[in-house]
């Protein structure tokens, strides 16, 4: 709650000081925060260490990109069995993107959730790389260069072109997810999900069909990450295979670990820390990762629940 208030007030000093680029950073933090929090739902609560979370970003982002691209070119996405023109209408594109991400999560989850531990990590990674190479080789849609958008999707009552309004739109999405997630992990479903992480066998012996619960959590997380992909595509007005690369999945994973897994809010702090450090350290040296590494090790060693844990204890 405190975090959301801080984030809501963040644009004020930024605008007063005239540092508009900080608003862009803030928006990126919100979007990556959403992606990281969605990963935390399956990782921190469900015990599913996915190294392919960026695939959902990609599915969401490319839905926006491809539909917009078709819109500019004036050609149909599909001509058979029914003609589907491209569109920049957010009310159509966004739900479709989230639905596609969830569908992708359902398909890949149905396969990968049958594995455990290291195998699960590798299989999610493999699926994400498949998506990466699929979009990289999709030459009619930019191939490895990606697609540049001419503008953001249109939404009623909102001027999405305004960075400030877009910031609050992202904040709204993040707030909804954190609020819903907060309820979810305390609900009956959430209890089962956490039970799966701690002792899945016991749940199974008690008669719980744990697979269904884990799959549903995976699909929900995939949908939220898909939405993050939609927002990311709109924010940068660009989609490219880079947003699906496995290093991106790794970054999201680092945000979760850094911020504190199993806390939902922590990963948002993790995203803020990582992106801010990236922004400022990159000013001094292009080898900013050299400084980030030791910092990450310290946090993981000494803060059992990451940044969130330190913050929580000191209060």
């Amino acid at each position, binding site marked *: 709650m405190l975090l959301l208030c801080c984030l809501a007030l963040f644009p004020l000093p930024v605008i007063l000081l005239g540092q508009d680029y900080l608003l862009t950073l803030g928006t990126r933090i919100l979007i990556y925060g959403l992606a990281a929090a969605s990963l935390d739902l399956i990782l921190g609560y469900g015990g599913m260490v996915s190294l392919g979370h960026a695939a959902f970003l990609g599915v969401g982002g490319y839905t926006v990109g491809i539909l917009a691209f078709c819109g500019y070119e004036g050609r149909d996405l599909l001509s058979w069995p029914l003609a589907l023109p491209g569109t920049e209408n957010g009310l159509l594109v966004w739900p479709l993107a989230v639905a596609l991400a969830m569908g992708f999560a359902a398909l890949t989850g149905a396969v990968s959730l049958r594995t455990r531990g290291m195998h699960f990590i590798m299989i999610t990674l493999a699926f994400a790389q498949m998506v990466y190479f699929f979009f990289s080789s999709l030459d009619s849609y930019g191939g490895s260069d990606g697609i540049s958008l001419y503008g953001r999707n249109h939404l009623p009552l909102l001027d999405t072109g305004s960075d400030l309004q877009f910031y609050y739109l992202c904040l709204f999405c993040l707030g909804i997810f954190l609020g819903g997630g907060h*309820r*979810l992990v*305390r*609900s*009956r*479903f*959430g*209890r*089962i999900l*956490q*039970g799966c*992480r*701690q*002792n899945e*066998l*016991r*749940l*199974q*012996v*008690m*008669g*719980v*069909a744990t697979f269904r*619960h884990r799959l*549903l959590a995976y699909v929900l997380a995939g949908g939220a990450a898909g939405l993050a992909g939609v927002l990311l595509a709109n924010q940068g007005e660009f989609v490219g295979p880079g947003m699906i690369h496995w290093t991106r999945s790794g970054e999201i994973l680092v945000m979760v670990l850094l911020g504190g897994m199993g806390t939902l809010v922590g990963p948002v702090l993790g995203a803020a820390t990582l992106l801010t450090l990236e922004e400022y350290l990159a000013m001094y040296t292009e080898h900013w990762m050299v400084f980030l590494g030791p910092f990450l090790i310290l946090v993981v060693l000494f803060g059992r629940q990451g940044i969130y844990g330190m913050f929580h204890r000191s209060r």
Partner: protein
Amino acid sequence: MAGRVSMECSTGHGEVVESPVLEVTGLCKAYGGLTVCDRVDLQLLPGELHALIGPNGAGKTTLLNLISGLLTPDSGRIRFLGRDITSQPLHHPDRQGMARSFQITSVFPGFTVQENIALAVQVRAGNSFSFWRNTAADPDLQEPATEIMERIGLAARRGVRAADLSHGEQRQLEIAMALALRPRLLLLDEPMAGLGPGGTRKLTDLIETLKGEMTIFLVEHDMDAVFSLADRISVLVQGTVAACGDPASIRRDTRVREAYLGGTERAAAD
């Protein structure tokens, strides 16, 4: 297996009227060339406490895993409450009403005592696809959980994480979670394992209070507990039921003493 004796298992009262809660017939399980379960027949009658004893490696836990569905038998039948559950998956509705505890404590270490039991109550209630309501404020879950904690004697420890409980308390929690499922048949896999004499006595008293409420199948090494609790005892030796009967007849059975008690007079002494 020429020397295998077919054994008629008496209830000690001379008549078998009620249909069994669990009926195992001709159950076999082998790992490669090693037969761990060899044509096991077993009947558990309503309300009885049936103990299973046998030397290490006799296949007791394997039999329990076959009954509870963790393993699938190579051949044979398992009927529970009149329904064939031999190859039904763990979450099949026909298995509802059967609960088990584990030899090696198997609880949810990150949850508190109350949360552990409330989760079991929730599983028993059936519907876990509920996404909004806070379980901690749900009287349908917390009231039965509180009741069970008081009965088991864990009420004072309700807020403690399972990982921070003593070994004895974890054993209690293990049974509490099985009870929360309100089973018709309770399978207990060496509940006394690793307990001191005081803990064993406490747990024996607890199981004594459960007798009659449900059918209990008790796998246990502690002979004092077994002989004081059991209505009937089956002896498993090398995967086969070597003897079955009331405690007095098992004590007298010479084959049992040879195979299992190793000729010691311990069982006969008390």
